[in-house]
Protein backbone atom coordinates (compact mmCIF):
# COMPACT_ATOMS: atom_id res chain seq x y z
CA UNK A 1 0.00 0.00 0.00
CA UNK A 2 1.23 3.47 -0.80
CA UNK A 3 1.92 5.93 1.97
CA UNK A 4 -0.77 8.54 2.55
CA UNK A 5 1.70 10.97 4.07
CA UNK A 6 5.39 11.04 3.46
CA UNK A 7 7.89 13.30 5.13
CA UNK A 8 11.32 13.61 3.54
CA UNK A 9 14.28 15.20 5.25
CA UNK A 10 12.22 17.88 6.97
CA UNK A 11 14.31 20.66 8.50
CA UNK A 12 12.97 23.69 10.32
CA UNK A 13 15.21 26.32 11.88
CA UNK A 14 13.98 29.14 14.07
CA UNK A 15 15.61 32.47 14.69
CA UNK A 16 14.86 33.29 18.29
CA UNK A 17 14.42 37.04 18.94
CA UNK A 18 17.58 37.02 21.02
CA UNK A 19 19.67 35.98 18.07
CA UNK A 20 21.34 32.77 17.07
CA UNK A 21 19.44 29.95 15.47
CA UNK A 22 17.62 26.94 16.76
CA UNK A 23 17.18 23.78 14.74
CA UNK A 24 13.77 22.49 15.77
CA UNK A 25 13.67 19.72 13.19
CA UNK A 26 16.86 18.38 11.76
CA UNK A 27 16.30 15.93 8.95
CA UNK A 28 13.14 14.03 9.84
CA UNK A 29 11.88 11.41 7.37
CA UNK A 30 9.05 8.93 7.78
CA UNK A 31 5.84 7.83 6.16
CA UNK A 32 2.33 7.08 7.31
CA UNK A 33 0.19 4.32 5.83
CA UNK A 34 -3.55 4.76 5.35
CA UNK A 35 -5.36 3.91 8.58
CA UNK A 36 -2.14 3.72 10.56
CA UNK A 37 -1.58 5.32 13.97
CA UNK A 38 1.91 6.69 14.47
CA UNK A 39 2.77 7.60 18.03
CA UNK A 40 5.35 10.38 18.31
CA UNK A 41 7.19 10.47 21.63
CA UNK A 42 9.10 13.54 22.54
CA UNK A 43 9.76 15.89 25.42
CA UNK A 44 9.67 19.67 25.52
CA UNK A 45 12.08 21.03 22.98
CA UNK A 46 12.27 17.80 20.98
CA UNK A 47 10.52 19.44 18.04
CA UNK A 48 7.28 17.53 18.34
CA UNK A 49 4.97 20.54 18.10
CA UNK A 50 6.98 21.96 15.22
CA UNK A 51 6.50 18.61 13.51
CA UNK A 52 2.73 18.76 14.12
CA UNK A 53 2.30 22.18 12.55
CA UNK A 54 4.83 21.60 9.76
CA UNK A 55 2.74 18.74 8.46
CA UNK A 56 0.00 21.25 7.69
CA UNK A 57 2.43 23.73 6.24
CA UNK A 58 1.97 26.03 9.23
CA UNK A 59 5.08 27.83 10.32
CA UNK A 60 5.82 30.33 13.00
CA UNK A 61 6.92 33.71 11.68
CA UNK A 62 10.47 33.22 12.92
CA UNK A 63 10.91 29.87 11.21
CA UNK A 64 13.60 31.06 8.83
CA UNK A 65 14.70 27.97 7.09
CA UNK A 66 12.38 25.21 6.05
CA UNK A 67 13.51 22.47 3.75
CA UNK A 68 12.46 18.98 2.79
CA UNK A 69 9.13 17.66 1.63
CA UNK A 70 5.77 16.90 3.20
CA UNK A 71 3.88 14.81 0.68
CA UNK A 72 0.19 14.35 1.37
CA UNK A 73 -1.18 11.88 -1.12
CA UNK A 74 1.71 12.79 -3.35
CA UNK A 75 1.32 16.57 -3.15
CA UNK A 76 4.10 18.57 -1.51
CA UNK A 77 2.48 20.86 1.06
CA UNK A 78 5.64 22.87 1.57
CA UNK A 79 5.48 24.05 -2.05
CA UNK A 80 1.71 24.59 -2.12
CA UNK A 81 0.22 28.07 -2.45
CA UNK A 82 -1.72 29.55 0.44
CA UNK A 83 -5.08 29.16 -1.35
CA UNK A 84 -4.35 25.50 -1.98
CA UNK A 85 -3.25 24.97 1.61
CA UNK A 86 -6.43 26.52 2.90
CA UNK A 87 -8.41 23.95 0.97
CA UNK A 88 -6.27 21.10 2.25
CA UNK A 89 -6.00 22.06 5.90
CA UNK A 90 -9.01 20.83 7.82
CA UNK A 91 -10.27 18.90 4.85
CA UNK A 92 -7.57 16.41 3.94
CA UNK A 93 -5.33 16.79 6.98
CA UNK A 94 -6.30 18.34 10.29
CA UNK A 95 -4.71 19.18 13.59
CA UNK A 96 -6.06 18.83 17.13
CA UNK A 97 -4.37 21.15 19.57
CA UNK A 98 -3.41 20.49 23.13
CA UNK A 99 -5.39 23.14 24.91
CA UNK A 100 -9.09 23.02 24.02
CA UNK A 101 -9.90 26.02 26.17
CA UNK A 102 -7.59 28.20 24.08
CA UNK A 103 -8.34 26.68 20.69
CA UNK A 104 -12.08 27.36 20.85
CA UNK A 105 -13.73 30.75 20.40
CA UNK A 106 -14.99 31.71 23.84
CA UNK A 107 -18.13 33.59 22.81
CA UNK A 108 -19.41 31.40 20.02
CA UNK A 109 -21.64 28.38 20.58
CA UNK A 110 -19.67 25.20 19.99
CA UNK A 111 -22.09 23.84 17.38
CA UNK A 112 -21.47 26.90 15.26
CA UNK A 113 -17.72 26.44 15.54
CA UNK A 114 -18.03 22.96 14.07
CA UNK A 115 -20.45 24.23 11.43
CA UNK A 116 -17.96 26.90 10.36
CA UNK A 117 -15.39 24.27 9.51
CA UNK A 118 -17.86 22.60 7.18
CA UNK A 119 -18.90 25.92 5.67
CA UNK A 120 -15.26 26.90 5.08
CA UNK A 121 -14.79 23.75 3.06
CA UNK A 122 -17.66 24.30 0.70
CA UNK A 123 -20.65 22.63 2.33
CA UNK A 124 -23.55 24.82 1.24
CA UNK A 125 -27.12 25.35 2.35
CA UNK A 126 -28.37 25.97 5.88
CA UNK A 127 -30.16 22.70 6.33
CA UNK A 128 -27.33 20.61 4.87
CA UNK A 129 -24.90 22.35 7.20
CA UNK A 130 -27.15 21.78 10.20
CA UNK A 131 -27.54 18.16 9.31
CA UNK A 132 -23.83 17.56 8.76
CA UNK A 133 -22.92 19.38 12.00
CA UNK A 134 -25.39 17.27 13.90
CA UNK A 135 -24.04 14.12 12.29
CA UNK A 136 -20.47 14.93 13.32
CA UNK A 137 -21.45 15.80 16.88
CA UNK A 138 -23.40 12.58 17.20
CA UNK A 139 -20.23 10.66 16.45
CA UNK A 140 -18.71 12.18 19.57
CA UNK A 141 -21.63 12.66 21.93
CA UNK A 142 -24.76 10.73 22.80
CA UNK A 143 -27.58 11.75 20.48
CA UNK A 144 -29.67 13.22 23.29
CA UNK A 145 -26.68 15.19 24.55
CA UNK A 146 -25.48 16.50 21.20
CA UNK A 147 -28.17 19.14 20.86
CA UNK A 148 -27.48 20.70 24.26
CA UNK A 149 -23.70 20.64 23.70
CA UNK A 150 -24.04 22.32 20.31
CA UNK A 151 -25.92 25.19 21.95
CA UNK A 152 -23.37 25.58 24.75
CA UNK A 153 -20.46 27.97 24.96
CA UNK A 154 -17.02 26.45 25.60
CA UNK A 155 -16.91 27.62 29.24
CA UNK A 156 -20.11 25.70 29.96
CA UNK A 157 -18.48 22.41 28.97
CA UNK A 158 -16.04 20.18 30.77
CA UNK A 159 -12.47 19.70 29.56
CA UNK A 160 -13.34 16.36 28.01
CA UNK A 161 -16.36 17.79 26.19
CA UNK A 162 -14.29 20.68 24.83
CA UNK A 163 -11.70 18.25 23.59
CA UNK A 164 -14.46 16.32 21.82
CA UNK A 165 -15.56 19.54 20.10
CA UNK A 166 -12.00 20.04 18.82
CA UNK A 167 -12.03 16.47 17.55
CA UNK A 168 -15.40 17.14 15.90
CA UNK A 169 -13.88 20.13 14.07
CA UNK A 170 -10.93 18.03 13.00
CA UNK A 171 -12.97 15.17 11.56
CA UNK A 172 -15.94 17.19 10.24
CA UNK A 173 -14.75 17.22 6.65
CA UNK A 174 -13.59 13.63 6.62
CA UNK A 175 -9.82 14.10 6.45
CA UNK A 176 -7.58 11.16 5.69
CA UNK A 177 -4.94 12.19 8.23
CA UNK A 178 -5.48 13.65 11.70
CA UNK A 179 -2.63 14.98 13.80
CA UNK A 180 -3.17 15.24 17.53
CA UNK A 181 -0.62 17.27 19.51
CA UNK A 182 -0.77 16.18 23.17
CA UNK A 183 -4.58 16.02 23.01
CA UNK A 184 -4.93 14.67 26.52
CA UNK A 185 -2.21 16.57 28.33
CA UNK A 186 -4.52 19.03 30.08
CA UNK A 187 -7.07 16.43 31.16
CA UNK A 188 -7.31 14.42 34.34
CA UNK A 189 -6.63 10.68 34.02
CA UNK A 190 -10.21 9.45 33.79
CA UNK A 191 -11.05 12.00 31.10
CA UNK A 192 -7.75 11.23 29.42
CA UNK A 193 -8.74 7.56 29.12
CA UNK A 194 -12.14 8.61 27.83
CA UNK A 195 -10.61 10.73 25.07
CA UNK A 196 -8.17 7.96 24.15
CA UNK A 197 -11.24 5.77 23.81
CA UNK A 198 -12.74 8.33 21.43
CA UNK A 199 -9.62 8.19 19.26
CA UNK A 200 -9.77 4.40 19.23
CA UNK A 201 -13.40 4.40 18.14
CA UNK A 202 -12.81 6.99 15.43
CA UNK A 203 -9.95 5.03 14.07
CA UNK A 204 -12.04 1.88 13.96
CA UNK A 205 -15.11 3.53 12.46
CA UNK A 206 -13.53 6.01 10.08
CA UNK A 207 -10.25 4.32 9.29
CA UNK A 208 -8.36 7.53 10.01
CA UNK A 209 -4.61 7.65 9.73
CA UNK A 210 -3.30 9.43 12.78
CA UNK A 211 -0.20 11.00 14.19
CA UNK A 212 -0.55 11.03 17.94
CA UNK A 213 2.02 13.21 19.68
CA UNK A 214 2.70 12.81 23.40
CA UNK A 215 5.43 12.87 26.01
CA UNK A 216 3.90 9.93 27.86
CA UNK A 217 4.89 6.53 26.42
CA UNK A 218 2.23 4.80 28.49
CA UNK A 219 -0.51 6.36 26.37
CA UNK A 220 0.71 4.65 23.22
CA UNK A 221 0.53 1.01 24.36
CA UNK A 222 -2.27 -0.85 22.63
CA UNK A 223 -3.08 2.17 20.49
CA UNK A 224 -0.23 3.13 18.21
CA UNK A 225 0.92 0.84 15.40
CA UNK A 226 4.35 2.39 15.20
CA UNK A 227 6.26 4.67 17.53
CA UNK A 228 8.63 7.42 16.50
CA UNK A 229 10.92 8.83 19.20
CA UNK A 230 12.09 12.37 18.67
CA UNK A 231 15.07 13.94 20.43
CA UNK A 232 16.53 17.36 19.61
CA UNK A 233 14.70 17.46 16.30
CA UNK A 234 15.99 14.10 15.16
CA UNK A 235 14.49 10.64 14.97
CA UNK A 236 16.35 8.51 17.48
CA UNK A 237 14.18 5.44 17.16
CA UNK A 238 11.32 4.37 14.94
CA UNK A 239 9.68 1.00 14.89
CA UNK A 240 6.63 -1.17 15.54
CA UNK A 241 4.93 -0.06 18.77
CA UNK A 242 5.24 -3.42 20.50
CA UNK A 243 8.97 -3.51 19.73
CA UNK A 244 9.77 0.06 20.75
CA UNK A 245 7.59 0.04 23.84
CA UNK A 246 8.53 -3.42 25.07
CA UNK A 247 12.22 -3.49 24.24
CA UNK A 248 13.44 -0.02 23.37
CA UNK A 249 16.88 0.01 21.82
CA UNK A 250 18.06 3.62 21.88
CA UNK A 251 19.58 4.65 25.21
CA UNK A 252 17.30 7.71 25.26
CA UNK A 253 14.11 5.68 24.82
CA UNK A 254 15.29 3.31 27.50
CA UNK A 255 16.12 6.07 29.97
CA UNK A 256 12.80 7.75 29.29
CA UNK A 257 10.86 4.63 30.16
CA UNK A 258 12.88 4.00 33.28
CA UNK A 259 12.08 7.49 34.55
CA UNK A 260 8.40 6.62 34.91
CA UNK A 261 7.42 5.54 38.41
CA UNK A 262 6.76 1.81 38.60
CA UNK A 263 3.17 0.88 39.11
CA UNK A 264 1.56 -2.00 40.97
CA UNK A 265 3.91 -4.90 40.38
CA UNK A 266 6.99 -3.40 41.98
CA UNK A 267 5.39 -0.69 44.04
CA UNK A 268 6.37 -2.22 47.31
CA UNK A 269 10.07 -2.59 46.77
CA UNK A 270 10.52 0.62 44.80
CA UNK A 271 8.38 2.89 46.95
CA UNK A 272 10.10 6.17 47.83
CA UNK A 273 13.29 5.03 46.08
CA UNK A 274 14.93 7.32 43.59
CA UNK A 275 13.66 7.12 40.06
CA UNK A 276 16.12 6.62 37.24
CA UNK A 277 15.97 10.20 36.05
CA UNK A 278 17.90 11.25 32.95
CA UNK A 279 20.60 13.63 34.10
CA UNK A 280 20.84 17.07 32.51
CA UNK A 281 18.40 18.98 30.45
CA UNK A 282 16.95 18.49 27.01
CA UNK A 283 17.41 22.19 26.19
CA UNK A 284 21.17 21.89 26.33
CA UNK A 285 21.00 19.38 23.52
CA UNK A 286 19.55 21.89 21.11
CA UNK A 287 22.73 23.96 21.06
CA UNK A 288 24.61 23.27 17.89
CA UNK A 289 27.45 20.91 18.63
CA UNK A 290 29.23 18.00 17.12
CA UNK A 291 28.35 14.41 17.73
CA UNK A 292 25.20 12.69 18.90
CA UNK A 293 22.69 15.12 20.44
CA UNK A 294 21.98 12.76 23.34
CA UNK A 295 25.66 12.14 24.09
CA UNK A 296 25.95 14.57 27.06
CA UNK A 297 23.15 12.77 28.91
CA UNK A 298 23.67 9.27 27.61
CA UNK A 299 24.41 6.50 30.13
CA UNK A 300 25.98 4.35 27.39
CA UNK A 301 28.13 6.93 25.62
CA UNK A 302 31.23 5.91 23.75
CA UNK A 303 34.18 7.93 22.42
CA UNK A 304 32.82 8.08 18.90
CA UNK A 305 29.56 9.71 20.11
CA UNK A 306 31.38 12.95 20.95
CA UNK A 307 32.73 13.64 17.53
CA UNK A 308 30.36 12.00 15.08
CA UNK A 309 26.68 11.98 14.59
CA UNK A 310 25.13 8.51 14.29
CA UNK A 311 23.05 7.65 11.24
CA UNK A 312 19.94 5.51 11.31
CA UNK A 313 20.76 1.83 11.78
CA UNK A 314 18.26 -0.75 10.57
CA UNK A 315 17.61 -3.37 13.24
CA UNK A 316 14.88 -5.00 11.21
CA UNK A 317 12.81 -4.07 8.18
CA UNK A 318 10.65 -1.71 10.23
CA UNK A 319 12.80 -0.84 13.25
CA UNK A 320 15.50 1.81 12.98
CA UNK A 321 17.62 3.39 15.67
CA UNK A 322 20.14 6.22 15.58
CA UNK A 323 22.94 4.97 17.77
CA UNK A 324 26.52 3.80 17.26
CA UNK A 325 25.96 0.89 19.62
CA UNK A 326 24.04 -0.92 16.92
CA UNK A 327 26.30 -0.15 14.02
CA UNK A 328 27.50 -3.28 12.27
CA UNK A 329 24.49 -5.24 13.46
CA UNK A 330 22.52 -4.60 10.31
Amino acid sequence: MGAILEVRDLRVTYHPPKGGSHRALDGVSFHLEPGEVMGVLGESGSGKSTLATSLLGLFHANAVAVSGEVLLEGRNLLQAKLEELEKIRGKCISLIFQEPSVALHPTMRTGRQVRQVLAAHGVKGGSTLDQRTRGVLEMLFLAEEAERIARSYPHQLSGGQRQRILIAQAIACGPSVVIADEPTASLDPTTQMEILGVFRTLRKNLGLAMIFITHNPALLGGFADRVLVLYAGRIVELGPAEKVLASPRHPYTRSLFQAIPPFLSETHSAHKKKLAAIPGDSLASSLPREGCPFEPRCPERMDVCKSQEPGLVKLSEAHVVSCFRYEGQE
Partner: protein
Amino acid sequence: MTARSEKTARPVVRVENLVKRYSKKKLAGPGAEVRALDGVSFSILKGTTLAIVGQSGSGKSTLALCLACLEKATSGSIWFEETDITQLTEKEYRRIRRQIQLIFQDPVNSFHASWTMLEILTEPLALQGNVRRDEMRARAHVLLEQVGLSPEMEGRIPAELSGGQRQRLAIARALTLEPKLLILDEALSALDCSVQAQIANLLLELQDSLGMTCLFISHDLAMAAHLADEIAVMSRGQIVEQGPPDKILKEPESRVTRELLAAVPRLNFSRPGMAES
Protein backbone atom coordinates in the same frame (compact mmCIF):
# COMPACT_ATOMS: atom_id res chain seq x y z
CA MET B 1 14.59 4.33 56.36
CA THR B 2 15.78 4.78 59.94
CA ALA B 3 14.85 8.43 59.91
CA ARG B 4 11.28 7.47 59.27
CA SER B 5 10.96 4.82 61.95
CA GLU B 6 12.36 7.20 64.55
CA LYS B 7 9.54 9.58 63.92
CA THR B 8 7.23 10.07 66.78
CA ALA B 9 3.57 10.13 65.94
CA ARG B 10 3.39 13.90 66.12
CA PRO B 11 1.19 15.36 63.42
CA VAL B 12 2.31 18.64 61.87
CA VAL B 13 -1.14 19.19 60.48
CA ARG B 14 -4.46 17.92 61.71
CA VAL B 15 -7.54 18.78 59.71
CA GLU B 16 -10.90 18.22 61.35
CA ASN B 17 -14.21 18.18 59.56
CA LEU B 18 -13.22 20.94 57.17
CA VAL B 19 -16.00 22.47 55.10
CA LYS B 20 -15.67 25.08 52.38
CA ARG B 21 -18.72 26.32 50.56
CA TYR B 22 -18.74 28.69 47.64
CA SER B 23 -21.89 30.42 46.59
CA LYS B 24 -22.40 30.43 42.88
CA LYS B 25 -24.13 33.67 41.97
CA LYS B 26 -26.74 33.68 39.31
CA LEU B 27 -28.05 36.66 37.39
CA ALA B 28 -31.57 35.98 38.63
CA GLY B 29 -32.96 33.94 41.47
CA PRO B 30 -31.17 32.51 44.46
CA GLY B 31 -27.55 31.43 43.96
CA ALA B 32 -26.57 27.81 44.12
CA GLU B 33 -24.14 26.52 46.69
CA VAL B 34 -21.07 24.50 45.86
CA ARG B 35 -19.59 22.35 48.59
CA ALA B 36 -15.96 22.24 47.55
CA LEU B 37 -14.97 20.60 50.82
CA ASP B 38 -17.57 18.61 52.67
CA GLY B 39 -16.26 17.39 55.99
CA VAL B 40 -12.59 16.53 55.35
CA SER B 41 -10.45 15.14 58.18
CA PHE B 42 -6.87 13.86 58.13
CA SER B 43 -3.51 14.41 59.72
CA ILE B 44 0.05 14.40 58.41
CA LEU B 45 2.88 13.18 60.61
CA LYS B 46 6.15 15.04 60.75
CA GLY B 47 8.54 14.11 57.96
CA THR B 48 5.98 12.18 55.93
CA THR B 49 4.09 12.81 52.72
CA LEU B 50 0.36 12.59 52.35
CA ALA B 51 -0.88 12.43 48.78
CA ILE B 52 -4.34 13.64 47.87
CA VAL B 53 -5.59 12.22 44.60
CA GLY B 54 -8.87 12.72 42.80
CA GLN B 55 -10.41 13.95 39.60
CA SER B 56 -10.71 17.58 38.57
CA GLY B 57 -13.29 19.27 40.73
CA SER B 58 -12.97 16.88 43.65
CA GLY B 59 -11.84 19.66 45.96
CA LYS B 60 -8.09 18.99 46.02
CA SER B 61 -7.00 22.51 45.19
CA THR B 62 -9.51 24.13 47.54
CA LEU B 63 -7.98 22.03 50.28
CA ALA B 64 -4.52 23.30 49.35
CA LEU B 65 -5.69 26.91 49.42
CA CYS B 66 -7.37 26.48 52.81
CA LEU B 67 -4.24 24.91 54.29
CA ALA B 68 -2.04 27.66 52.89
CA CYS B 69 -4.31 30.25 54.51
CA LEU B 70 -5.23 31.65 51.13
CA GLU B 71 -8.91 30.73 51.50
CA LYS B 72 -10.95 30.85 54.66
CA ALA B 73 -12.77 27.63 55.48
CA THR B 74 -16.50 27.81 56.12
CA SER B 75 -16.29 25.56 59.16
CA GLY B 76 -14.08 22.95 60.76
CA SER B 77 -10.54 23.39 61.97
CA ILE B 78 -6.99 23.08 60.71
CA TRP B 79 -4.54 22.46 63.51
CA PHE B 80 -1.04 23.46 62.51
CA GLU B 81 1.11 22.26 65.38
CA GLU B 82 -0.69 23.87 68.34
CA THR B 83 -2.66 26.54 66.50
CA ASP B 84 -6.04 26.33 64.83
CA ILE B 85 -5.30 28.43 61.78
CA THR B 86 -8.94 28.83 60.81
CA GLN B 87 -9.36 31.08 63.88
CA LEU B 88 -6.49 33.46 63.15
CA THR B 89 -6.68 37.13 62.32
CA GLU B 90 -5.02 38.44 59.17
CA LYS B 91 -2.05 39.66 61.20
CA GLU B 92 -1.53 36.29 62.87
CA TYR B 93 -1.86 34.60 59.50
CA ARG B 94 1.30 36.24 58.29
CA ARG B 95 3.38 34.55 60.94
CA ILE B 96 1.92 31.15 60.05
CA ARG B 97 2.02 31.50 56.30
CA ARG B 98 5.79 31.50 56.14
CA GLN B 99 5.75 28.06 57.69
CA ILE B 100 3.40 26.66 55.08
CA GLN B 101 4.59 27.02 51.51
CA LEU B 102 2.69 26.25 48.36
CA ILE B 103 4.02 25.21 44.96
CA PHE B 104 1.71 25.38 41.98
CA GLN B 105 1.48 23.46 38.74
CA ASP B 106 2.65 26.26 36.52
CA PRO B 107 5.58 28.17 37.97
CA VAL B 108 5.65 30.64 35.06
CA ASN B 109 2.65 32.46 36.46
CA SER B 110 3.90 32.44 40.00
CA PHE B 111 7.13 34.35 39.33
CA HIS B 112 7.59 38.00 38.52
CA ALA B 113 8.53 37.70 34.86
CA SER B 114 11.33 40.29 34.90
CA TRP B 115 12.92 39.44 38.23
CA THR B 116 16.17 37.56 38.31
CA MET B 117 16.48 34.29 40.17
CA LEU B 118 18.37 36.10 42.92
CA GLU B 119 15.60 38.65 43.38
CA ILE B 120 12.98 35.92 43.43
CA LEU B 121 14.84 33.98 46.09
CA THR B 122 15.73 36.89 48.32
CA GLU B 123 12.33 38.58 48.33
CA PRO B 124 10.87 36.32 51.02
CA LEU B 125 13.92 37.03 53.20
CA ALA B 126 13.78 40.76 52.55
CA LEU B 127 10.13 40.83 53.59
CA GLN B 128 11.13 39.32 56.92
CA GLY B 129 13.55 42.19 57.47
CA ASN B 130 16.74 42.14 59.54
CA VAL B 131 18.76 40.15 57.02
CA ARG B 132 21.86 41.69 55.44
CA ARG B 133 22.17 41.71 51.65
CA ASP B 134 25.26 39.55 51.51
CA GLU B 135 23.67 37.08 53.90
CA MET B 136 20.60 36.92 51.70
CA ARG B 137 22.71 36.28 48.65
CA ALA B 138 24.66 33.54 50.38
CA ARG B 139 21.41 31.94 51.50
CA ALA B 140 20.06 32.10 47.94
CA HIS B 141 23.17 30.33 46.67
CA VAL B 142 22.80 27.57 49.25
CA LEU B 143 19.19 27.11 48.21
CA LEU B 144 20.06 27.00 44.52
CA GLU B 145 22.58 24.28 45.17
CA GLN B 146 20.12 22.41 47.32
CA VAL B 147 17.66 22.16 44.44
CA GLY B 148 20.31 21.29 41.88
CA LEU B 149 20.75 24.67 40.21
CA SER B 150 24.03 26.49 39.81
CA PRO B 151 24.58 29.75 41.76
CA GLU B 152 26.06 31.16 38.53
CA MET B 153 22.51 31.24 37.17
CA GLU B 154 21.41 33.88 39.71
CA GLY B 155 21.08 36.60 37.09
CA ARG B 156 18.66 34.72 34.84
CA ILE B 157 14.99 35.49 34.58
CA PRO B 158 12.28 32.77 34.58
CA ALA B 159 11.81 32.94 30.80
CA GLU B 160 15.40 31.78 30.36
CA LEU B 161 14.77 28.59 32.32
CA SER B 162 13.36 25.23 31.26
CA GLY B 163 10.20 23.86 32.87
CA GLY B 164 12.16 21.65 35.22
CA GLN B 165 14.53 24.46 36.22
CA ARG B 166 11.57 26.74 36.94
CA GLN B 167 10.00 24.12 39.17
CA ARG B 168 13.34 23.75 40.97
CA LEU B 169 13.38 27.51 41.46
CA ALA B 170 9.83 27.39 42.84
CA ILE B 171 10.92 24.73 45.32
CA ALA B 172 13.99 26.80 46.29
CA ARG B 173 11.81 29.83 46.93
CA ALA B 174 9.41 27.76 49.00
CA LEU B 175 12.34 26.55 51.10
CA THR B 176 13.72 30.07 51.74
CA LEU B 177 11.81 30.51 54.96
CA GLU B 178 12.34 26.94 56.13
CA PRO B 179 8.69 25.97 56.09
CA LYS B 180 7.34 23.13 58.19
CA LEU B 181 4.84 22.07 55.56
CA LEU B 182 5.27 22.05 51.80
CA ILE B 183 2.11 21.81 49.71
CA LEU B 184 2.62 20.71 46.12
CA ASP B 185 -0.49 21.30 44.05
CA GLU B 186 -0.01 19.31 40.82
CA ALA B 187 3.59 20.48 40.93
CA LEU B 188 4.78 17.75 38.55
CA SER B 189 1.83 17.57 36.18
CA ALA B 190 3.06 20.09 33.64
CA LEU B 191 6.50 18.54 33.31
CA ASP B 192 7.82 15.91 30.91
CA CYS B 193 8.23 12.37 32.22
CA SER B 194 11.99 12.54 32.58
CA VAL B 195 11.84 15.94 34.30
CA GLN B 196 9.10 14.67 36.60
CA ALA B 197 11.49 11.95 37.70
CA GLN B 198 14.23 14.53 38.42
CA ILE B 199 11.91 16.70 40.51
CA ALA B 200 10.43 13.67 42.29
CA ASN B 201 13.96 12.61 43.24
CA LEU B 202 14.71 16.11 44.49
CA LEU B 203 11.61 16.00 46.72
CA LEU B 204 12.66 12.64 48.15
CA GLU B 205 16.17 13.99 48.81
CA LEU B 206 14.86 17.10 50.51
CA GLN B 207 12.51 15.08 52.64
CA ASP B 208 15.40 12.90 53.71
CA SER B 209 17.81 15.72 54.48
CA LEU B 210 15.42 18.31 55.92
CA GLY B 211 12.73 16.05 57.36
CA MET B 212 10.20 17.98 55.32
CA THR B 213 6.51 17.29 55.72
CA CYS B 214 4.65 17.34 52.41
CA LEU B 215 1.14 17.39 51.07
CA PHE B 216 1.32 16.13 47.49
CA ILE B 217 -1.80 16.90 45.49
CA SER B 218 -2.05 15.16 42.16
CA HIS B 219 -4.21 13.32 39.74
CA ASP B 220 -1.32 11.00 38.93
CA LEU B 221 -1.92 7.96 41.11
CA ALA B 222 1.32 6.27 40.06
CA MET B 223 3.49 9.22 41.11
CA ALA B 224 1.43 9.72 44.29
CA ALA B 225 1.96 6.08 45.21
CA HIS B 226 5.65 6.43 44.57
CA LEU B 227 6.19 9.52 46.71
CA ALA B 228 3.69 9.25 49.52
CA ASP B 229 3.54 7.41 52.81
CA GLU B 230 -0.21 7.62 52.75
CA ILE B 231 -2.79 8.32 50.04
CA ALA B 232 -6.19 9.94 50.48
CA VAL B 233 -8.64 9.68 47.59
CA MET B 234 -11.02 12.61 47.23
CA SER B 235 -14.31 12.83 45.42
CA ARG B 236 -16.96 15.53 45.61
CA GLY B 237 -15.31 17.30 48.50
CA GLN B 238 -14.92 14.22 50.67
CA ILE B 239 -12.16 11.74 51.38
CA VAL B 240 -13.62 8.44 50.22
CA GLU B 241 -10.65 6.26 51.02
CA GLN B 242 -7.35 6.59 52.81
CA GLY B 243 -4.46 4.24 53.42
CA PRO B 244 -0.87 3.31 52.58
CA PRO B 245 -0.09 3.28 48.82
CA ASP B 246 0.21 -0.47 48.65
CA LYS B 247 -3.21 -0.97 50.11
CA ILE B 248 -4.83 1.67 47.88
CA LEU B 249 -3.31 0.18 44.74
CA LYS B 250 -3.85 -3.46 45.51
CA GLU B 251 -7.06 -3.55 47.51
CA PRO B 252 -8.99 -0.43 46.56
CA GLU B 253 -12.28 -0.28 48.37
CA SER B 254 -14.15 2.63 46.85
CA ARG B 255 -15.47 2.91 43.33
CA VAL B 256 -13.66 6.22 42.84
CA THR B 257 -10.31 4.65 43.63
CA ARG B 258 -10.96 1.77 41.26
CA GLU B 259 -11.86 4.23 38.50
CA LEU B 260 -8.68 6.22 39.10
CA LEU B 261 -6.63 3.03 39.05
CA ALA B 262 -8.21 1.93 35.81
CA ALA B 263 -7.32 5.27 34.28
CA VAL B 264 -3.58 5.07 34.98
CA PRO B 265 -1.93 4.58 31.60
CA ARG B 266 0.48 1.68 31.78
CA LEU B 267 3.37 0.54 29.77
CA ASN B 268 1.84 -2.88 29.34
CA PHE B 269 5.03 -4.81 28.87
CA SER B 270 7.95 -5.80 31.02
CA ARG B 271 9.92 -2.84 32.21
CA PRO B 272 12.95 -2.12 30.08
CA GLY B 273 16.31 -2.78 31.60
CA MET B 274 14.96 -5.56 33.81
CA ALA B 275 14.68 -8.25 31.19
CA GLU B 276 17.97 -7.53 29.53
CA SER B 277 20.43 -7.42 32.35
